[in-house]
Each structure stands twice: as C-alpha cells, then as structure tokens.
C-alpha cells in the first residue's frame, strides 16, 4: 500500500514546484488535498455475486463474492505515471467439495485477491511498464480476455492450480505486438514462501483488439501447493479469430508436472455475441492428455446483462471422458447472479 500512497502524494505536489499565490489556483490544482488527489482519475465499484452449482440430484454447493473493484490512474503534471488495480473479494464457500486449497474447509470465509497491482509507466509510449503486486499469470487466452468473476474460464486452473500470483512483470506494446513477462512466487492467493524458486511466465502476442489474435506463452517454475512444491513447465499457443458475430478460440499447451508427468491440454471455443455485446454464449471443449491417459470435458454457457450493472450467467459442464477413473461424472449446472454498483 505504500506505493499507491506515495504516488498519491506525488500527484498532490505542485506542478514544477510552483507555489501559487492566493486566491489564484493553478490548473491542475497544485494544492490539492490528499483526498482530492486520491479522487482524481479514480473509478470504483462494489461487486457482489452469488453462484450455485447443481446436478441432477439438486443443489451441490455455492459461493458468494463481496468485492471492491478499484482502478486509479496516477498523474504527475503532464503525464500518467502509474495505474493501480485493486480487487479484494471477501468470498464465502458453502458445501464446496472438492475444496480448493485457498479455503480451509468446504464452509469457509476467505479474502480472495483477484487483482491487486500497480503498473508503473517506465516509457511514455507504452513500450515498457513495470507491474508489481498480484496479477494473472501472463499465459494463453486468459491474458487478453477478462474472465475474472465470470463463469467462463480458460486453462489456468487446470494447468497451474492458480490464476493469479504475487510478483512483478514487465509489459507493454511494441509495434503491433504486446507482451508481458513475469516472475512470481508460485503461492497463488496468499503471499507466502514455502520454498521453491518461483515461477517465470510470459506471453507475446498480436494486439488483442484485432479480428485475429495470436499468442505464444510459457510457464516454467515451482508452485507452492498443499502437497508441497510442484515444478511445472508449459509452452502454449493461443488464437482468437472473429468472423461476424462469431468468435473461434483455441489454446494448446504442452509441458510437464513434477518433471515426470507429461501434460498436453487443448481448448477450443466457439462463441456468439449480440450487437451491443450484452449477450454472450459459448461452447467449449477441453481435452487433456496426462501420460497417455486422456480426458474430455464440454462446457456451454450464456451471459446476459439485462440492465445497469446486472449480469446473469449460466454454464453447463459435462465430463465426457474422465481423466482419472474416479466414478461417475454427472453434468453440473452453475447459475450466477452478479451486480456491480
């Protein structure tokens, strides 16, 4: 928190060190109070959502999210110097089995950090920035598509067991390419050190706003898991192709877990959106191969934003072929209601 406060103080300083005479006030105001400096270029919202998971026998489990989404641009004189993104979410798990490591049990409250970082502009042309804090691992489709807080998701969970991590990245736009390379602790939600050398990750891709977007990514490092340090490597390719109202996405990953398990994972998605993008529908197929044993999962979902701040989503997941033989896999239906205000 020290860095944002320091940046706030910086933007409250007089421009060029000028001391204005009363009653004259310069523009931008050189004598802005801390509060005024903080409110300048600030966005924030509360973000509340509830998610229920059901199968053919009925209710299985649920999650509640109560979060803050805060975005602030720090400006000094004639230029932007940094952007703060701060998203702490108080999360309630009910009957959450299997229980992700971030929770202490199937019924638990936990503070989940979605994103919490400062991105400092090292070059004004956007070619080099330094991000410090908690961020999504720069890898695959997730890097350019915002799925935080939504039911639609990509392969971070399956590949790495985590989506975001603590550390630092260099990132920016160079020509028609964008890049981000990171070192992170491998600890996920919590800032802890159970050993391990951390994780190197990165993605180089074409600009995300194009009709065709391609990227190559890698991860190489040691992740801190409840079972101990797990070395993981991945090399990934991702693609997004937009034609008309349709989007065609693909991601391919290959690598190792524990230096022994060969993992290959492929994801394909076809999606559709309406003209003002208040409705999005998607179908995904995720195929995984682990040491020649294969698994196949299909997902289909819809998100609808019917009114100011409201978002309704549903997703149906069917395991077509289980990766490990652990009994039956009935389809599950997830419903989510989200409100940002």
């Amino acid at each position, binding site marked *: 928190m020290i860095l944002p406060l320091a940046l706030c103080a910086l933007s409250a300083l007089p421009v060029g060190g000028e001391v204005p005479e009363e009653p004259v006030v310069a523009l931008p105001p050189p004598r802005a109070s801390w509060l005024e400096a903080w409110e300048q270029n600030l966005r924030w919202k509360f973000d509340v959502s509830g998610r229920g998971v059901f199968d053919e026998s009925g209710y299985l489990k649920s999650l509640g999210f109560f979060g803050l989404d805060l*975005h602030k641009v720090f400006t000094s004189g*004639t230029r*932007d110097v940094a952007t703060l993104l701060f998203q702490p979410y108080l999360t309630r798990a009910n009957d959450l089995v299997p229980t992700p490591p971030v929770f202490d049990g199937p019924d638990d409250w936990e503070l989940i950090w979605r994103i919490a970082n400062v991105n400092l502009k090292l070059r004004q042309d956007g070619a080099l920035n330094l991000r410090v804090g908690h961020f999504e691992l720069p890898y695959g489709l997730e890097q350019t598509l915002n799925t935080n807080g939504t039911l639609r998701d990509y392969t971070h969970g399956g590949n790495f067991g985590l989506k975001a991590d603590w550390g630092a990245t260099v990132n920016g736009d160079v020509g028609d390419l964008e890049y981000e390379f990171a070192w992170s602790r491998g600890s996920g939600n919590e800032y802890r050190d159970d050993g391990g050398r951390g994780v190197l990750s990165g993605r180089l891709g074409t600009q995300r706003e194009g009709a065709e977007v391609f990227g190559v990514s890698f991860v190489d490092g040691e992740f801190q898991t409840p079972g101990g340090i797990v070395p993981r490597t991945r090399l990934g390719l991702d693609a997004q192709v937009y034609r008309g109202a349709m989007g065609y996405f693909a991601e391919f990953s290959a690598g190792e877990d524990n230096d022994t398990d060969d993992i290959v994972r492929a994801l394909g998605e076809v999606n559709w959106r309406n003209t003002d993008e208040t409705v999005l529908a998607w179908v995904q197929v995720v195929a995984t191969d682990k040491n020649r044993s294969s698994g196949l999962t299909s997902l289909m979902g819809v998100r609808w934003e019917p009114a100011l701040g409201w978002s309704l989503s549903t997703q149906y997941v069917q395991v077509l072929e289980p990766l490990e033989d652990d009994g039956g896999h009935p389809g599950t239906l997830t419903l989510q209601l989200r409100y940002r*205000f």
Partner: protein
Amino acid sequence: MRRIVSLILLAAALCSAVHAQAFCALRDPNRQIYRLFPKATSYRSIVRTVGKDARREVGARLPFNLHFNELGRHTLYVPMRGDEALGLVHVRSEAGRWGLVEVAWGLDFDLRVINYEFQRCRDRQRDALETEGVRRRLTGADFDALRAMLSEDGDELAPGRLPVEPAAKDLALTVLRNVLKTIAATEAAWMDDLMALRADALARELMPGAKSLKRVTPLHDQKCLDLLRSRVGEQGTGIQRDSTSVWQVLDRDGKRLGSVITTSWQLDELTLDLICAVDREGKILELRTPDSWPTEEVERLYGEQVGESPASYETCAGPVELAVFELLSTLESHALVKRNN
C-alpha cells in the same frame, strides 16, 4: 449490521455510474494516441463521469442517445509534447452489426476531428472507412458538419456527404453516430477541462514564452461584483458570469504575460461561447468562438474589438463593446490589467 447496510446503500447512491465489466479489462489506447498525435511525448488522463446529465445533453442534440452501457466513468486523454497539450483523444464504443466498434477520435480543442483510428472493429468493411476520401471528409469536421452527414432522424447517411460503397453504409452510420456522441459527451462531461485547455492553447499561440496558467478563483468575489455594479450596472452586459473563467498566463519565471478569459455571452435568443486573450495593459489580443459565428455581423463586431481596450461605459458603442468592457473590468478587479482610464 443495519449501519453497514446503510453505508453500502449510501455508497451505491453516490456511485451512480455502473458497468458490468470489471476494471481489469481497461487498457489505454497507447498506440492510437501516438498515431493520432505523432509529435506527442506523453499523455495524461482525465477521468470524468458521463452520467444522466450528460445523457440528457447528448439526447437534446442528437436523435439518438447514449446507451446505459455507455454511462459511467470515462477517460479523456490529452496528448502532450513537453508541457504543451496537443489535442484530445476520446475512445468510445458503438454497437455495430458485428459487435462493438471502438474508435479513438483525435480532436482539437474546438472539438473538430483531427484524425481517427479504429481501436477495435471486426467488421469486414473497416477498410472502406479508412480510405483517403472518407478520411478527408471527416478530418476538420465539427459537430454541425458531421451532423449534416446524417439524415434528420439519424438513421441513414445523408446523400452524397460521405463517399462509401453501399456495403459499408452500416459501418459508416455506426462511425458517424459514434463521433457525434463522442463530441457531445466530451462537451457535456469535460467542459471545465476543455475551457482550461482552450485557454492554454490560446495563450501559447499569442503570448510567446507562455509556460503555465493560473486560474483566478473565486472570480466574482465581492470586490469584483462591486466594481462591475459600479461600471455596468445591476443588469450586466449579457456576459454569463457563472460560465466565466479567467486564467493568468505566466512565463517560465512566473512573470505575468497576460490573461485568458472563457465565457458565454447572451443577447436575446443568441448564446455565444467566447474565448479572449488580453495583454497586461488590457488590450484585446484575440477574441474568438470555438463554435461558428452566428452571423457575419456578430463576427465583424467582435473582430473589431481586437487591438482595442474599451475604457468606460459611456464610450462603448454597442452591446459587444459593453461585453468586452465587462470582461476587462473583471480583470481589473483582480489587478490583472493596468490601464490608464
């Protein structure tokens, strides 16, 4: 608990603008800013709320309006070369046939189009809107000229105004609606910033060595009001004091070079925005309007004031000269001009 609920409801009431998308999806249009303003060395963000008032103002000027998804906190970018503001960049999205179309508009301080760049457009007709012919028509166009490119109801292109193939007419309509909403929303939500930027640009143009501006506030204090009452009477001269701002223009050493005034003048049914540069002796250096002059006669009358310095109520020949006299008297009340009356 009730107190917490009350605080949340209060915060919700204060935070009226809403978006369904999380702020981690926000990205600066780095590349577009430097393409639109190749001489820029940096840029600064100004975040303001495009709220219901802005929506009302946009709706009053156009036969279509901002969609609820377009309300909320938005950023106006000011490209800078050193400490000189070069113009404005405003990115807005518009529902197109194949999803949202995002265009970065480069504007001058009078809100005329300097150039434009698609930030995101997945329509196959995009190239048709980037031809030399279309770019030539849009460059330099102000709100009225752009409005004339649409039919009265805004649902069709006006015949012969924009040279596009029939297949590209839908996208052309989307782009024109987008730029009109961009200009109207910029005027509605960033007017104070716009006034200051206009003042800065005029000062740099007319006062060599101009380095910074200091806004005079409060402007119409008791001393100023007393002087105006004694000079121009209770009724005033049509100068809209609520919308009047004055800046001192300073050189690098803080020495005053002159003043810039932005204001509105109302006579009968005519309302005119004015910007006026005045030297230290009270001589009018320039007097112009960011809009079009309503008649040649008004333009001539104001043009005749350049180089003049009306000295007293009795010597003023007409309403234009009286308005200028009030502005100079306002400066005198703050000791910003020294005249030998």
